[in-house]
């Protein structure tokens, strides 16, 4: 381990694996000290390339991640992996089983794998996933793979976090109507059709290609646009003639046989190069920074407002009960508190 100044941030930056792992836990558990450490690490971040992998449960995200790790390691790159699995809404517990598919890298010191539970968050990631990615960035990882929980159609949080989003499909999950639904399919920078040795693989590729063709005429810029309250806003239309236009390639893979994975990595690399030459990488990072900042601000302000409310009106459960019984007006309460906080 490199020399360090003894602080947690110093240790993490010097390569102390245990310090980094403990910091990730503290971030997951929202320990106040962790925020301070993240502040100290922040200037060292921004180098890592972040790749998101999302798609339906059972599509093979973990297996593809495993094969991609091998490819990046052969190139001499160090890799961080965050694998997210769902928290049970009944018990609050979770089975985090994605590591099983990445056994080949269990003893490789150039690979750091961290499993996280969603802990009630609904966007496909956990609330602390972005922070954990920041820690891996500060540790010096060249590439960070973020595997979302198995998603359906609406969990698009990973688009705000990753430079390149790979959406993993499998044959046989739906007809061509499914292919043109909004949500997850729209955030893809690269499509992987995994388990491509199964029947229906070519059909799935055709469905996706047809969706892209239909979209070409009405395409708008990727969903990185937000209004002043940070709500998603449709981007400006763009056409294939636009130098910045990117049509997601569709790559067939069979992860368990290591087939098509080099092509997938090539497609990711092509996207990365496109982001660099068009200047869109800097835009995406600004969008990510905006998302992170607004989230921080929201948490701080809400914490302050709830503390103030508790001091003046009783705890939140009592207030909620009064509102539900129509004995208190939520609109007036919120407006009045916000006005007082504005000062």
């Amino acid at each position, binding site marked *: 381990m490199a020399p360090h100044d003894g602080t947690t941030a110093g240790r993490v930056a010097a390569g102390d694996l245990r310090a980094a792992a403990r910091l990730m836990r503290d971030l997951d558990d929202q320990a106040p000290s962790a925020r301070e450490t993240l502040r100290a690490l922040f200037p060292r971040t921004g180098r890592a390339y972040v790749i998101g992998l999302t798609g339906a449960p059972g599509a093979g995200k973990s297996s593809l991640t495993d094969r991609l790790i091998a490819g990046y390691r052969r190139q001499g790159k160090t890799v961080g992996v965050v694998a997210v699995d769902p928290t*049970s809404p009944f*018990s609050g517990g979770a089975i985090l*089983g994605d590591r099983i598919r990445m056994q080949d890298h269990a003893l490789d010191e150039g690979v750091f794998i961290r499993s996280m539970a969603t802990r009630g968050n609904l966007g496909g990631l956990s609330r602390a996933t972005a922070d954990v990615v920041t820690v891996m960035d500060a540790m010096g990882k060249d590439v960070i793979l973020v595997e979302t929980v198995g998603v359906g159609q609406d969990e698009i949080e990973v688009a705000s976090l990753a430079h390149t989003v790979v959406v993993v499909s499998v044959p046989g999950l739906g007809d061509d109507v499914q292919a043109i639904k909004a949500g997850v399919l729209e955030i893809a920078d690269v499509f992987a059709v995994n388990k491509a040795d199964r029947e229906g693989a070519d059909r799935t590729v055709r469905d996706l290609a047809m969706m892209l063709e239909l979209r070409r005429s009405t395409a708008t810029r990727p969903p990185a646009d937000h209004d002043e309250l940070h709500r998603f806003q449709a981007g400006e239309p763009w056409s294939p003639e636009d130098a910045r236009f990117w049509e997601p390639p569709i790559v067939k893979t069979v992860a368990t046989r290591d087939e098509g994975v080099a092509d997938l990595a090539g497609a990711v690399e092509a996207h990365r190069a496109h982001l660099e030459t068009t200047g869109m990488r800097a835009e995406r990072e600004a969008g990510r920074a905006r998302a992170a900042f607004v989230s921080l601000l929201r948490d701080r302000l809400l914490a302050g407002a709830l503390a103030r409310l508790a001091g003046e009106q009783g705890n939140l459960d009592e207030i909620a009960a009064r509102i539900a019984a129509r004995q208190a007006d939520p609109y007036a309460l919120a407006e009045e508190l916000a006005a007082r906080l504005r000062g």
Partner: protein
Amino acid sequence: MSQKERTLRILVAKPGLDGHDRGAKIIARALRDGGFEVIYTGLHQTPEMIVAAALQEDVDAVGLSIMSGAHMTLFPAVIDLLKAKGATDVTVFGGGIIPQDDVPRLKELGTAEVFLPGSTTQAIIDWIRGHVHPRQAA
């Protein structure tokens, strides 16, 4: 988050050559139902793989499921390696096909508890809640 609210993270592993994972999967599911985050690493784990995962995942405890009879080698191997890596605060427990007579020696070697065949999953959950504590935030 206050100390008592920190969700426990527990690694469940099957070390060695033993290929029967049904017990480990039942334990993993039970621990999830008990409110813990279970990092399940599956079959054929070496002590080195188990400890590497335990460190990366910052777990509070490691549960070893051993049906092969190799427990007298495997438990101390994991315990000693955790110690060598400075992770003395990780509780090691386990279960499987382990003769009652071997339990005292396993505890001497640093195993916190051994659950013999017939132990209920609730007993394991209750024991964890009583004996495994998340460390303080840094």
